[in-house]
């Protein structure tokens, strides 16, 4: 795929690497038993350890370790049986210990990869360098008082997974696909809730530009982006900025940047002289982590089918197209819903395309219109399956099915009940259909004459009339057959 962008003088390639910070889905923090619920009142979820009171000590939360290992396995990465927690030392008001406990030289997860899929059916592997566990900081609130800054430590000590990629990404689109894919995988694994708005998933973007074939240029890091839209905007802006500087004869200064979502511009976070020396060293309060093989293998067995595997299954077993499969797997809940249709109604397996269409068109649009997600859908996968079965067995037409579907959404009734109550069962009785046809041909002798003289387009008119009389319930296939027979 050609990702080059045009400068004033030549074409440029953007080189992007990502550090994704994903909050571990866990009821308690990485080194304390405080709860992690989002949106609680300030400083209501803070233990003595989180507030860094004198003499307090961290104790590793085993569940967070499991989640990190699970994520590593989901990213097809090497799990390091030996890993070390280090202290990253710096001062900030919302960092109570004066250091963040992180993993530096020996992360819990090593090299892995993630595949991103393009619309044209092609794909690309993005290499993962590592995944490590670390504590989140608290939150400084500058807008509560004109002269003071308040600190909320609820988030202090919450477990994060930092997932670092190689600089394998070449455009804002690829970056968006990559972060979406990571988010999907984490949500399949249930190791992160993926909620970007609440900051459960955010990214630092490392970006440089170069002429194709050249060595990597000097990179800048854009910190703390928490929406895919902003990530794309920030990359576009920053790439342009760097190209302009270089083309004007300047050089790029390695820098840490912030993206202003209002202006759409990046600006330096701190100058070079203030660059931190984090003085990493192994945290003496924590012993190195030694994971046993059994521990890892047990987690491996708990890993569900991941999006790529489900996609292969859809393509091979259900004969769905690559595109349909991609749409279905993008959200775990959708894929689960789709799967459960077949778990309940196995006989629909040869109608997978029909099921996929009903979900991605009818269900998606009605959910979107009502601003709810698939888990909140009033139409269960069972009922949707029943509805599709009614179509498949010619009990109702596709058109009537759409009306029934809307009725199901409002009343939460089963499609059978609705069809019976309203008498919507399709007419498949040949005699009945024949009598309807006879009726319309008798009342339309002129048109019948016209048809026989060559105006065959009138077939549609006859069908329409017959449908009208049957109130849409006539089986279109049978109707068509009999009508054609009678017209010849």
């Amino acid at each position, binding site marked *: 795929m050609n990702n080059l962008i045009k400068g004033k003088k030549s074409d440029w390639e953007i080189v992007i690497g990502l550090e994704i910070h994903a909050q571990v889905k866990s009821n308690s923090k990485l080194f304390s038993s405080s709860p992690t619920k989002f949106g609680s009142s300030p400083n209501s979820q803070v233990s003595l350890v989180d507030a*860094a009171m004198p003499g307090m000590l961290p104790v590793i939360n085993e569940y967070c370790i499991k989640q990190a290992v699970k994520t590593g396995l989901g990213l097809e990465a090497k799990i390091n049986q030996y890993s070390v927690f280090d202290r990253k030392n710096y001062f900030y008001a919302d960092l109570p*210990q*004066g*250091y963040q406990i992180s993993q530096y030289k020996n992360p819990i997860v090593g090299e892995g990869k993630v595949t991103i899929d393009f619309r044209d059916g092609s794909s690309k592997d993005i290499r993962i360098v590592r995944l490590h566990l670390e504590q989140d900081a608290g939150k400084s609130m500058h807008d509560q008082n004109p002269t003071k800054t308040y600190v909320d430590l609820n988030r202090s000590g919450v477990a994060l997974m930092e997932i670092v990629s190689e600089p394998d990404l070449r455009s804002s689109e690829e970056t968006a696909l990559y972060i979406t894919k990571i988010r999907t995988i984490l949500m399949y694994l249930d190791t992160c809730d993926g909620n970007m708005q609440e900051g459960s998933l955010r990214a630092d973007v490392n970006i440089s530009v170069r002429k194709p074939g050249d060595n990597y240029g000097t990179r800048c890091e854009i910190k703390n982006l928490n929406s895919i839209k902003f990530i794309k905007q920030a990359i576009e802006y920053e790439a342009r900025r760097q190209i302009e500087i270089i083309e004007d004869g300047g050089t790029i200064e390695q820098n840490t940047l912030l993206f202003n979502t209002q202006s759409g511009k990046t600006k330096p976070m701190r100058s070079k002289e203030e660059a931190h020396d984090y003085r990493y060293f192994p945290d003496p309060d924590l012993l190195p982590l030694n994971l046993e093989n059994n521990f890892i293998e047990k987690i491996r067995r708990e890993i569900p089918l991941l999006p790529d595997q489900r996609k292969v299954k859809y393509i091979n077993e259900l004969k769905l197209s690559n595109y349909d499969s991609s749409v279905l797997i993008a959200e775990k809940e959708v894929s689960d819903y789709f799967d459960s249709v077949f778990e309940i109604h196995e006989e629909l397996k040869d109608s997978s395309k029909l099921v996929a269409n009903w979900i991605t068109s009818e269900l998606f649009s009605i959910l979107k219109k009502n601003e709810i997600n698939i888990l909140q859908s009033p139409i269960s996968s069972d009922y949707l399956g029943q509805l599709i079965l009614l179509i498949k067995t010619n009990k109702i037409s596709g058109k009537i099915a759409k009306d029934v579907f809307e009725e199901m959404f409002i009343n939460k009734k089963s499609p059978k009940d609705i069809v019976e109550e309203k008498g919507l069962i399709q007419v498949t009785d040949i005699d009945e259909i024949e009598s309807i046809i006879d009726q319309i041909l008798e009342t339309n002798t002129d048109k019948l004459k016209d048809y026989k003289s060559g105006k065959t387009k009138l077939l549609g008119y006859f069908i329409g009339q017959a449908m009208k009389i049957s109130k849409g319930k006539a089986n279109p296939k049978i109707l068509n057959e009999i009508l054609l027979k009678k017209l010849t």
Partner: protein
Amino acid sequence: MDFISIKETADKLKNKKISITELSNIFIDRINKNANLNAYIYFDEDNINHQISSLFHQESLLNGIPLAIKDLFCTKNMPTTAASKILKNFKPTYESFVTQKLLNEGSIFLGKTNCDEFAMGSANTTSYFGNVVNPLSTKKIPLVPGGSSGGSAAAVAAGLCLGATGTDTGGSIRQPASFCGIVGIKPTYGLCSRWGIVAFASSLDQAGIFTNCVDDAAILMESIAGYDNKDSTSANIEIPNYYKSINNDLSGKTVGIPFEYNISGIPEEISIIWEEAIKTLEKGGVKIKKISLPHTKYALPTYYIIAPAEASSNLARYDGVKYGFRSEKNESLDEMYEMTRKEGFGKEVKRRILIGTYVLSAGYYDAYYLKAQKVRKLIANDFINSFQECDFILTPTTPSAAFPIGEKEDDPIKMYLNDIFTVPASLAGIPGISIPYGKSKEGLPLGIQILSKHFDEQTLFNVASYLERNNE
């Protein structure tokens, strides 16, 4: 003097020769009369009386026994300062694991004892609350009690409590015990929980005990040892009944005498008591084995890299944001940090934060911190190898007797040399005990140090008890 031993006092309490209140009043009186020693940072009679009135009787030797707590242990009902201005008014809402264990057995806390600021010092001269005076000082020349647990050592030696807790990072229990002529034990790293103890150097800090005799040390040690799941470095092992298991029969045992501890320049009197102690052991049927701990000479520099490195990070939390002292000069966040720490920390603490920050800095980490960690491993291996040949090791505790207050203050290196015999065991994490043994020419007490294998505190008590009984 009566009432200097826990065992004897516990018997008197049990036999109703004295009540807990009467006993406490004796100690309150002694503390008031010895206020000049400056052994206590916090001492409040009402607090003591309140403890007695709310005491539930415990079936323990320690029920009603008055103890002193080094002001590095967080205590719920008494302030905790770490002898620093930066924690001057700090009142913890929690009780350290070790002191809670003592409270569970019904002991009474007389107060919080003075120490070097954040336990950084060897003379108890760095405390924000002033230096402690060694009770053995003559009027003319006040002597240091040693450090950092100088207040605890002085309080025990002067009879201002029956026992005291201390912490030992590089010698902070054993050295002041030696200077004050009492028993001081630093157990194996991991034997006592560090939870609730203000941290100095996490990989070295260990709680321990001061008493006037070995039996008492065994009694208290047994009480404060034990596993704590809130401390990841705490050892989950069975704690023996040290006191009841004390066995003075050392025949057949082997003592290791490390060649490298014959350092040049130490006073002859130190060598003499060392020799005498060896002879005494020999008389008890102990085999003498000359051993080598070849990396001993690197112990002090190694210690003075690792301990400050950890301290520089451990003390980062004292920033004026959450608790403790905050400078008036706080127009900006940076100014608040700088001024709070400038005004809140003393000179020695700042020196060690600077050293620690330096050795962890980019470009210096490998040459200092990483190398020091490697050497530490070698030092630990020296001990492990030696314990293949001997059951315990005997050394002097300090290179001199207590020195006058003010001496060595202008030369930190000289001050650091005080720890030369105690630091190697700290780096190796093995237990050590110092007991008074012999006197200097000036008549000041000297100490002898016994070291043993990891978690073999029982051997320390056995040997110390033997030497205590056979000390001429």
